[in-house]
């Protein structure tokens, strides 16, 4: 039996113990409360951010590229509707299975499947994979038919780059392809707007103007659940299309140029001699840029790569050739400007039996029987080598080099616009010391006088050179993209005021020139040279006489050039083989530069045919056709120019 006293005692104990317990409970409650306070009040911001990170996911939507047109607003790089199939990874239950099914429906090749698996490795579980970028209508409709069997597969209507004039403009416009890690690292604009599947410019204008063309990606913000499934759209910041670009190219002339170059390796460039607008920049052979948009197949790639005529080389600005006789007007001009010769200066060309001799070395004219006594005008007109050997010797390579550079040789015509553009070589004694660490030989000066030896130029440089001679000797700014600030009238008035400026004593010293500044000392010297070029095309015995236009309005002046690929031996000279008898690789390059119309020059052009033989036979006839087309389209171009000016 429990006693009463014990009961009291027990009661006391229980109460005391309860008190301790309650105290402990209150303490623990305090801990929980302070923890809740900590989480919900003190660190609320942190957890709110984490919660939003959990529930909100951003999807980037790809921007559309800007459209590229020619000067006349013909679209040369377009966005085309394409049918695609995307695979939403979070909705796919069995990836291998899905790919297997898709393979049967849309006929995926083994290497394509390999690429898809590689892409999958890199993507996140909620990403969308592009399985095929460009389905045929047949495949697309078949896909829609079997869609219920394909979890996660989505038929998508998208846009992709399309070049309507496929082969004709690839060397100007370039092409696009998937952005590589390098592209993303190199261009901030690409990095900022990167979306899986984004196409970026690889070469040409597409590459140079990528920053303008890409546009800005859009952002769709979705609320998602724990497994990444989209629940609702929160906001959509729409993507913006890239800027549209107008180039200075005339599509029709470009197409004619490509047509003229068909089945040959070569280049044709046409330029406005005042505005510097590049009207045509054709390079042959070409290839289809559309093949690159969705990744080129190995077969197509090999075909392009293994073509002996090198379609990938943009010959207009990355092909380097000895200018040959096309440099003679420049040599003559230099000699006149420095007062080395005057118009009465004559040299006797006596044919192969009596070649030009210097320190025991013999230098021949191209004409077996010789030209006889040659004045400057005749020497240019008939392209006498002996005359220019002598003039070059008297002038010296350094003065020649200075004038050649002044008129556009030896530096990039379009500055850094094209990655592949080469600057070529304009040799001088200093250049040879620095680069080859050798001293200059006089014999090298002599052959530089006829555009052989170390000198290397691009067809676009020759075109610019001709333009700057034809416009009366003023520096212009070549451009491939229409620029509303380039105003013909302003340029012409600038040139007019330069013409009347008193010329400084230092005009013939090495110096930097601003755009539209005069490059010459005496305007008569230029006139003499241009007149000689007129003779070359429009007078009997002129090297391009056969390619002349008889109609006054098409009359042009030009200069042929034949650039030796290998040294001509005495044996070659003896054999005097016809073009067809020489191995292709050993044939001379044919060159021609011209400006038109003669009385009021406006356009310059250069033609190059690789291994085409002589300039007068292979290159000059093309200029005949081109110039007619260029001049026929002149009025139209001027009308557009006025319209554009009025809009601006």
């Amino acid at each position, binding site marked *: 039996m429990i006693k009463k006293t014990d009961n009291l005692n027990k009661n006391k104990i229980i109460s005391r113990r309860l008190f301790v317990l309650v105290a402990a409970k209150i303490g623990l409650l305090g801990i929980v409360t302070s923890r809740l306070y900590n989480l919900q009040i003190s*660190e609320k911001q942190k957890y709110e951010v984490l919660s939003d990170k959990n529930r909100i996911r951003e999807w980037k939507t790809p921007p559309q590229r800007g459209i590229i047109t020619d000067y006349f607003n013909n679209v040369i790089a377009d966005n085309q509707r394409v049918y695609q199939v995307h695979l939403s990874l979070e909705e796919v239950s069995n990836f291998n299975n899905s790919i297997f099914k898709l393979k049967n429906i849309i006929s995926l090749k083994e290497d394509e499947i390999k690429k898809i698996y590689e892409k999958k490795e890199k993507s996140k579980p909620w990403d969308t994979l592009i399985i095929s970028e460009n389905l045929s209508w047949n495949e697309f409709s078949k896909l829609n038919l079997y869609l219920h069997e394909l979890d996660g597969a989505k038929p998508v209507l998208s846009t992709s780059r399309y070049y309507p004039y496929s082969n004709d403009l690839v060397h100007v416009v370039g092409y696009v392809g998937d952005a590589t890690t390098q592209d993303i690292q190199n261009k901030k604009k690409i990095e900022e707007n990167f979306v899986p599947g984004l196409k970026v410019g690889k070469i040409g204008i597409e590459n140079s103007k990528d920053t303008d063309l890409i546009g800005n990606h859009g952002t769709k913000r979705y609320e998602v659940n724990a497994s990444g499934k989209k629940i609702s759209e929160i906001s959509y910041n729409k993507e913006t299309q890239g800027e549209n670009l107008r180039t200075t190219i005339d599509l029709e002339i470009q197409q004619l140029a490509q047509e003229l170059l068909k089945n040959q390796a070569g280049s044709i460039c046409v330029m406005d001699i005042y505005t510097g607008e590049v009207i045509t920049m054709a390079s042959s052979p070409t290839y289809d840029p559309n093949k690159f948009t969705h990744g080129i197949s190995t077969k197509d790639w090999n075909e392009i790569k293994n073509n002996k005529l090198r379609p990938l080389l943009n010959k207009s600005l990355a092909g380097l050739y000895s200018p040959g006789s096309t440099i003679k007007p420049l040599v003559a001009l230099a000699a006149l400007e420095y007062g080395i010769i005057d118009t009465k200066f004559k040299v006797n060309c006596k044919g192969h039996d009596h070649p030009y001799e210097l320190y025991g070395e013999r230098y021949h004219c191209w004409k077996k029987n010789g030209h006889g006594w040659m004045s400057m005008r005749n020497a240019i007109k008939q392209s006498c080598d002996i005359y220019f050997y002598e003039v070059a010797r008297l002038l010296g390579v350094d003065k020649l080099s200075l004038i050649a550079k002044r008129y556009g040789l030896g530096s990039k015509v379009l500055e850094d616009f094209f990655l592949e553009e080469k600057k070529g070589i304009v040799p001088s004694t200093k250049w040879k010391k620095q680069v080859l660490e050798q001293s200059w030989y006089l014999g090298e000066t002599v052959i530089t006088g006829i555009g052989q030896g170390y000198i290397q130029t691009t067809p676009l440089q020759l075109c610019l050179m001709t333009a700057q001679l034809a416009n009366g000797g003023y520096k212009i700014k070549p451009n491939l993209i229409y620029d509303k600030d380039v105003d013909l009238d302003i340029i012409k008035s600038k040139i007019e005021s330069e013409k009347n400026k008193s010329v400084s004593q230092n005009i013939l010293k090495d110096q930097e020139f601003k755009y539209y500044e005069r490059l010459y000392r005496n305007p008569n010297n230029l006139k003499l040279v241009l007149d000689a070029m007129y003779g070359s095309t429009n007078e009997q015995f002129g090297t391009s006489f056969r390619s002349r236009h008889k109609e006054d309005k098409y009359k042009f002046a030009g200069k042929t050039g034949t650039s030796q690929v290998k040294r001509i031996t005495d044996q070659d000279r003896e054999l005097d083989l016809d073009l067809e008898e020489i191995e292709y690789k050993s044939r001379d390059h044919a060159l021609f530069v011209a400006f038109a119309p003669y009385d009021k020059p406006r356009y310059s052009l250069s033609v190059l045919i690789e291994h085409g033989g002589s300039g007068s036979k292979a290159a000059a006839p093309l200029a005949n056709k081109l110039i007619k087309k260029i001049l026929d389209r002149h009025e139209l171009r001027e009308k557009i120019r006025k319209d554009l000016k009025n809009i601006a």
Partner: protein
Amino acid sequence: MILSTSLNSNSYSFIDKLRAIDYFLIIIVAIIGSMSVFSIYSTESGNFSFYTKNHLTRFLVFFSMFFVLSFVRVSFWYRQAYIFYILGILLLLLVIFFGISASGSKRWINLFIMNLQPSELMKIAIIVCFARYYHRIQSSDIQSYKYLLQPIILLLIPCYLVITQPDLGTAILIAGSGLAIIWLAGLNLKYFIYSGLILLVSLPFVISILKPYQKSRILTFFNPDRDPLGAGYQIIQSKIAIGSGGLLGKGFLQGTQSYLEFLPEKHTDFIFTLFSEEFGFVGSMLLILLYALLIYRIIRIGFSSRSFFAKLYCYGFASALFLYIFVNIAMVVGLLPIVGAPLPIMSYGGSSMLSIMLGLSIVMSCKIYSRDSIGN
């Protein structure tokens, strides 16, 4: 006469009984109950479907049961205390042979109308059993080895059976409730200190026998970022949900963490997280206050009871209830490892609801028959 007077002192008219009921306690339970229904409703993103319907039904059924069983005389519980305990053990044994497994543990018996979790009943059984055990022991005898060993054995049997299910959380709650009564009965403090030290020493050994998932839970508790998508996921997401709730919460049915399924087990162990996300710090404190009031009322009933059984039971149950609540909340706020312990009344789960309501009905019976001095 003598008989009648003795009857009088121990008999209660129905009116007396109704008067004696602690209505305040009932109201608190009803409020928490309705809060729980709304919370479960929110876990289903505002659809009145499976879980909500089930939970509402169970709450109504067990709440009524609580009311009815309140009129069972407290002496009945006293007399049947050991039977209750033995029944609990038998059911736990039954689980071993006929139990239903779910997600790697075997805890339930199929009773056709519901799956019964005997370990939940054991939580109450151990309190009733210990209350009876210490009811008759003189305070001077409590420190003797006989009276020390007996309850420890009584406690170890169910704990062992529950741990092996495995269900560490419930085992800890059973052990905690048992120890609370042993403490209340007046066992010398030194024993608690000793056993605490022994536990500390044997901790490495205990950890070595834990299941891999239990081990990873404990490791995760110390560093949830160890495996943010695996073991640490629950606690990280729970903290994000509670933290982002802020002062006033995201609003009813607006809890993005639960609505978008970032919260695991949101209708059972993590119901507090959901509630806290939607109603914020203020809501959480209100809920905790309600629980505190409930515990206070239970202690008050114990205080005014005459018998030691009723006192020990009420204090013990109040402590157990506190322990359940504390372990659950501490767990979801990241103060304790995730061990799997439901929040009383709030969490979805029939057995838990049953045992809490049963426990409350015994408390109420102590109140109604407070004048009874059992066994004297």
